């Protein structure tokens, strides 16, 4: 995987945004979600736990991607 430091900031921003979205999914019932959110239902009081978990995990992957971009140039082979 090629490293590109210019991607660090967008990846971190995306990670933060996704984790905020996850929290919104966990805290707000379906009827109170913004209308553009998948799962919004003006008549439902259920919480979309799975949507939140998915957003949270993808957010973590975005952070991991940013973390990879912060590393130095590739120098060695693996030692398992």
């Amino acid at each position, binding site marked *: *995987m090629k*490293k590109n430091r210019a991607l660090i900031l967008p990846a971190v921003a995306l990670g933060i945004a996704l984790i905020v979205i996850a929290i919104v999914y966990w805290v707000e019932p379906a009827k109170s979600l913004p209308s553009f959110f998948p799962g919004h239902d003006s008549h439902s009081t259920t919480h979309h736990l799975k949507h939140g978990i998915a957003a949270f995990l993808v957010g973590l992957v975005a952070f*991991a991607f940013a973390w990879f971009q912060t*590393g130095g140039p590739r120098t060695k*082979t*693996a030692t398992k």
Partner: protein
Amino acid sequence: MILASLITYPQAVLLGLLQGVSELFPVSSLGHSVILPGLLGWNIHQNDKYFISFLVATHLATAIVLVFFFWRDWVRIVKGLGRSLRDREIAPGDSDAKLAWLLIVGTIPAGILGVALQDKLQHVFASQKSAALFLCLNGLVLYGAELLRRRAPVHEKGDPDDRIARRVGWKEAAGVGTAQALALIPGFSRSGASMGGGLLVGLSNEDAARYAFLLATPIIGAAAILKLPDLMGHDGNGVRGQALVASLCSAVTAYLAVRFLMRFFETNRLTPFAVYCFLAGLGCLLYFVS
């Protein structure tokens, strides 16, 4: 309503045995769980909450069996993931780390599509006729993957995880992961879609099956764990005992199925499953239409 009569113990045994096999064979477990009650005249419907809760237990059993079957692979994969995070890179030649991230990249689209579309698709395509039709199409997809495969079906030596990590790239991993979402439609097989995708990106049948099982484990396990509270709650009333029996049956057949398939695909193709899906789907379609 008498809850104890929702699913009988003989039905639970049969459904559990079927689930364990059909979840891992590329023949669509969901399709079979929709079609079988219709063929046998059972008053069980795929979208009934108690039935979904019941199926959760069998899925969890299948996921646990997969984790234990590929336990050594998972230990290596998790260690590889840790190494890559520590070093902030996937070192050249570290196939365990590469495989770990391939599985993550493949799981993301399947997970997102599953969360977004599962309920809608399974309500739209809940009928036995549509499941039979899609089972037919699943047969064509499997056959098509065999026709379009990049690599001749030969038994390869060496570490299979190394071969997978070498031959599958990031885009291919995302593509194979996305293909898994086909299984949201009853009749299409998750393992069939990912095995077919594996063949298209250049894996052998054996490696495509291994990659499909590794890729399926987090999705099946996570979906089951997230639904487990339903089984423990109100929706599980009257089916918990049957679910336990079914999950034990499912675990036995899932173990036998994965063991059989890993040997079968050393030298064989998807074609027999393609033929089965096409003929079974066609037969069931004619039966339900008539």
